[in-house]
């Protein structure tokens, strides 16, 4: 081993606490890349693979009814490669063990032997597929099966054509078009209350009276085909059959959710590592600079003995490399573990077969390179000075620290500040850049934590707005068909029901100046107190007596303003009405359109019809209420607000626990690393000065104040900066969550910021305490005899 290597090894051991603190910050950077990048790429590649193996369609359309022969015409559209027609219908289910009625989305399986590989193929995750000819065997989706503890062999009762039909679950399945199991209509749902049922074609056809016909079509495109052209052709072709407007993958609910998740993770996988990398570079720079300053004479000796500048420079770069060498494997290890936890959460929400965390080595490789470069660039400036230092000059002590009167001094003397306080302030004034970077480091720790935790506040706020302000009904009842408003009395007489409000959701296509958008038009009682129109700020808006209210997103798509008139195609009837836009609503979840229930009835010309009801109860729902609801064939699904909020909270809590622990640990590491190294360097630079003060009769505590005063001021100054940066960070992160369908208002909760502040202060105090202990062991005798 060369002498320089021995020196490196021993010095690294001597300053191991500093090296490790830097390595830990680097580990944080690598960890976030590995965990977020790996989860993202695992999700992406599992989805991609599954889209290919499951033959995920490119274009989707729903319609009222078309004869099977139309499929041949669809297949003839240029650019269309394959066509799969299906029958899709929501049916009422009675699920064993579930007191509420549930909704099953019945999706017909391809007729056996119909040839070709089907689009949106169902992947069996357990059990078996439906046997040919077995018309009461079905497959159910994973989330629904798990939430209701349904296993192959279990029986479900569906109400089909007003008859109770017993269906046997033979397998649990997944399909590329239902990775995300949500009904995608205006009615809320929870995991137990909504599931996908893949059923034999004859069963679905019989249930809907669609023998020889279909109401749903999926289209696979030929390579190079343009989706927009095919969509236009499909719309034209299906228009006479009640086509609701074809959509491409990006508008398909399940794919859209997956893409949103990938975008979010992409944003986070960039933002978090960037913070760590910047802090790591700063720490490396300050520690190596200080090391070089204390070893000036050694450097001179090395050079005098004939070591080249390059060899000496390399020696000091090796300290940075050593920190990276410890931090990188540590980061990879923790990152893989955290990534597995995150991927686990995703697989609860998105049912992607084969979704497993795998470290993305390309991203990791990139992270390693970036961390190494950050470490080296941090050290480079200091090392450059070493390389340029002529040996003779290096043997001389460095020029004494030059202080001069600074602008603050005048204020200082007016304020009659004590001398120690002046010392602290001058120290900061003398190296403003270092002070600023130190403060930025602590602020970054606070910002990262506050920003990341704010995401949960933002989500919580959204849920609060949605379920405590906008939708306050205890139960939402979805009806299988449209009924007169007088049905209200039936619901009002149910046990425990104190109030009933009525609703009607109608699929419509809104058209304006050549643009169009298909939405569910929600018609509500104007005087309703349960389902209300609420904007992003939580303001409640009244439903105007006439005309339509659009979410601002929809208005943007249609390029329409208040007062304009649009064409509204009633997709279930094939007729069109003109309607005036009377208000716009900037809301959390869009796209939506609202009307007054009575106004909608008269516009459609069919009187007061409804297909949903909101119930308010005198307490928790009683079992006889559900019994009676289940006994009503009219009732499709029932969703309990409490169950839905609980389900959401559970999922968020799981993700929050992991994220909070990870972010708190790593933000603490950053704060600890910055303050510890700052104070450690201060002690090294000023050890002699502080020991002199001890000799002069200053107590340990007084000297401790002078040592840690700078760090304390920096930390305190960093806090408001951290709040501001935290809000900006939260804004950047929520930007990743904002899509055509959601907007996430940033929320600044005092409790979150207070918590983040407390964590940073604790970490800083810990670093200060470590350094204070060290300062009490200063050698007072040596100081009398040594020169600087």
């Amino acid at each position, binding site marked *: 081993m060369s002498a320089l290597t021995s020196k490196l090894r021993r010095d690294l051991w001597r300053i191991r606490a500093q090296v490790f603190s830097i390595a830990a910050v680097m580990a944080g950077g690598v960890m976030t890349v590995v965990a977020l990048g790996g989860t993202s790429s695992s999700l992406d590649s599992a989805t991609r693979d599954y889209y290919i193996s499951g033959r995920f369609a490119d274009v989707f359309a729903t319609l009222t009814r078309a004869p099977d022969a139309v499929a041949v015409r669809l297949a003839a559209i240029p650019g269309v490669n394959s066509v799969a027609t299906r029958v899709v219908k929501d049916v009422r289910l009675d699920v064993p063990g579930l007191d509420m009625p549930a909704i099953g989305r019945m999706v017909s399986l391809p007729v056996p032997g119909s040839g070709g590989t089907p689009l949106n193929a169902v992947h069996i995750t357990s059990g078996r597929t439906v046997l040919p000819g077995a018309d009461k065997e079905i497959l159910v989706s994973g989330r629904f099966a798990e939430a209701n503890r349904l296993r192959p062999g279990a029986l479900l009762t569906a109400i089909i054509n007003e008859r109770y039909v017993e269906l046997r679950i033979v397998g649990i399945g997944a399909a590329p078009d239902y990775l995300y199991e949500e009904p995608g209509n205006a009615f809320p749902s929870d995991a137990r209350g909504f599931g996908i049922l893949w059923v034999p074609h004859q069963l679905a056809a019989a249930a809907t009276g669609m023998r020889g016909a279909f109401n749903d079509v999926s289209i696979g495109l030929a390579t190079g085909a343009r989706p927009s052209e095919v969509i236009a052709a499909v719309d034209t072709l299906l228009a006479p059959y009640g086509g609701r407007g074809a959509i491409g993958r990006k508008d398909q609910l399940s794919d859209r959710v997956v893409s949103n998740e990938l975008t979010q993770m992409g944003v986070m996988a960039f933002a978090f590592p960037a913070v760590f990398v910047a802090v790591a570079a700063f720490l490396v720079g300050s520690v190596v600079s200080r090391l070089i300053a204390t070893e000036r004479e050694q450097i001179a000796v090395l050079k005098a003995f004939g070591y080249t500048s390059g060899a000496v420079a390399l020696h000091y770069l090796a300290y940075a490399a050593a920190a990276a060498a410890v931090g990188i494997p540590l980061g990879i290890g923790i990152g893989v573990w955290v990534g597995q936890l995150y991927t686990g959460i995703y697989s609860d929400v998105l049912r992607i077969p084969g979704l497993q965390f795998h470290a993305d080595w390309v991203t990791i490789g990139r992270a390693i390179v970036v961390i190494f470069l950050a470490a080296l660039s941090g050290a480079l400036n200091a090392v450059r000075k070493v390389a340029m230092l002529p040996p003779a000059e290096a043997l001389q002590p460095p020029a004494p620290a030059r202080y001069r009167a600074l602008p603050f001094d005048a204020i200082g003397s007016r304020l009659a500040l004590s001398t120690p306080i002046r010392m602290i302030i001058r120290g900061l004034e003398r190296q403003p850049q270092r002070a600023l970077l130190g403060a930025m480091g602590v602020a970054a720790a606070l910002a990262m934590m506050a920003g990341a935790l704010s995401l949960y506040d933002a989500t919580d706020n959204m849920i609060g707005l949605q379920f405590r302000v906008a939708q306050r009904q205890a139960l939402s009842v979805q009806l299988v068909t449209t009924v007169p408003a007088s049905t209200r009395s039936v619901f009002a007489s149910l046990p425990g029901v104190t109030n009933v409000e009525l609703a009607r959701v109608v699929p419509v296509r809104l058209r304006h100046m050549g643009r169009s958008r298909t939405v569910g038009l929600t018609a509500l009682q104007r005087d309703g107190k349960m389902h209300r129109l609420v904007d992003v700020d939580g303001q409640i808006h009244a439903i105007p007596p006439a005309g339509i209210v659009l979410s601002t997103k929809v208005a943007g798509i249609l390029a329409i303003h208040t007062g304009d008139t649009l064409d509204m195609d009633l997709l279930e009837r094939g007729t069109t009405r003109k309607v005036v836009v009377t208000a716009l609503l900037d809301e959390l979840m869009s796209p939506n359109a609202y009307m007054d229930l009575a106004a909608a009835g008269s516009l459609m010309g069919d009187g007061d019809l409804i297909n949903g009801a909101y119930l308010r109860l005198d307490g928790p729902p009683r079992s006889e209420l559900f019994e009676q609801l289940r006994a009503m064939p009219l009732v499709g699904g029932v969703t309990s607000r409490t169950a839905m909020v609980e389900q959401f909270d559970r999922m968020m809590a799981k993700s929050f626990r992991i994220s909070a622990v990870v972010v708190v640990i790593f933000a603490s590491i950053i704060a600890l690393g910055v303050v510890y190294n700052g104070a450690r360097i201060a002690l090294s630079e000023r050890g002699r000065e502080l020991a002199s003060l001890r000799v002069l*009769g200053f107590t340990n505590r007084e000297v401790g104040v002078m040592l840690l005063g700078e760090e304390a001021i920096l930390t305190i100054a960093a806090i408001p900066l951290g709040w501001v940066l935290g809000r900006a960070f939260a804004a950047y992160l929520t930007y990743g969550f904002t899509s055509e369908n959601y907007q996430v208002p940033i929320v600044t909760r005092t409790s979150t910021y207070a918590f983040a502040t407390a964590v940073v202060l604790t970490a800083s105090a810990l670093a200060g305490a470590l350094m204070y202990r060290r300062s009490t062991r200063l050698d007072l005798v040596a100081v009398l005899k040594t020169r600087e």
Partner: protein
Amino acid sequence: MPTSAVSSNTAQPAATARSDAGPPPPAPVFLARGLTKIYRSGDLEVRALRELDMELYAGELLVLLGASGSGKSTLLNILGGLDTATSGTVRFEDHDLTSMNQRELTQYRRDHVGFVFQFYNLIPSLTARENVALVTEIARDPMKPDDALALVGLSDRMDHFPAQLSGGEQQRVAIARAVAKRPDVLLCDEPTGALDVETGRLVLRTIDLVNRQLGAATVVITHNVSIAGMADRVVHMTSGRISDSYRNAHRISAEELSW
């Protein structure tokens, strides 16, 4: 393996040697008896002080001479409350320094001791005035910093930072800082060690002046024998013992010193 620093061929410390000019002042400020200091590092044992007895009287200026390793700095450190003896006792007025803990020693330094270091040890971020103020702010009955600096002849340099002062000026600031608290004892460790003759003389004159004006018992450590002439009493140390001690009949002024 215990190792004695030097073979013990010198005579026992004798407090009565060369001349005895006038009666000794009545109550000693310091009274050391049987003072022994052993430094252990690993297997190595160094006896820095060996059963040393000594006194220092109020207002007295004592010059402590000796070669490197003779134990003079160790003695000064123990008197100054920076180090503790392995055995023996030191009394400062009616306090027993040997029984004090670190906190009490700090308080002792703060209230009673003024230090002057070979390398000044000024705080670079503070001006001359502020360096003195640093100490007066924590002292019980201090002078004004300006008065202390006037005493050392630096009235016109009070707002300068150490980097703007010459070595001699820095040392005089250090003396002002040491005396501004009106200490009972002033301990100077090689105060001229880093200075040229002319500047050194100026610094010694300042020490002489504050000793006379403030009456603080003063100990000046030096290996420069020429300085001995300015002392009331001169103590020679060899191998951790006092090998010689005598009183000067007349203190000569710093200007008359030469080396």
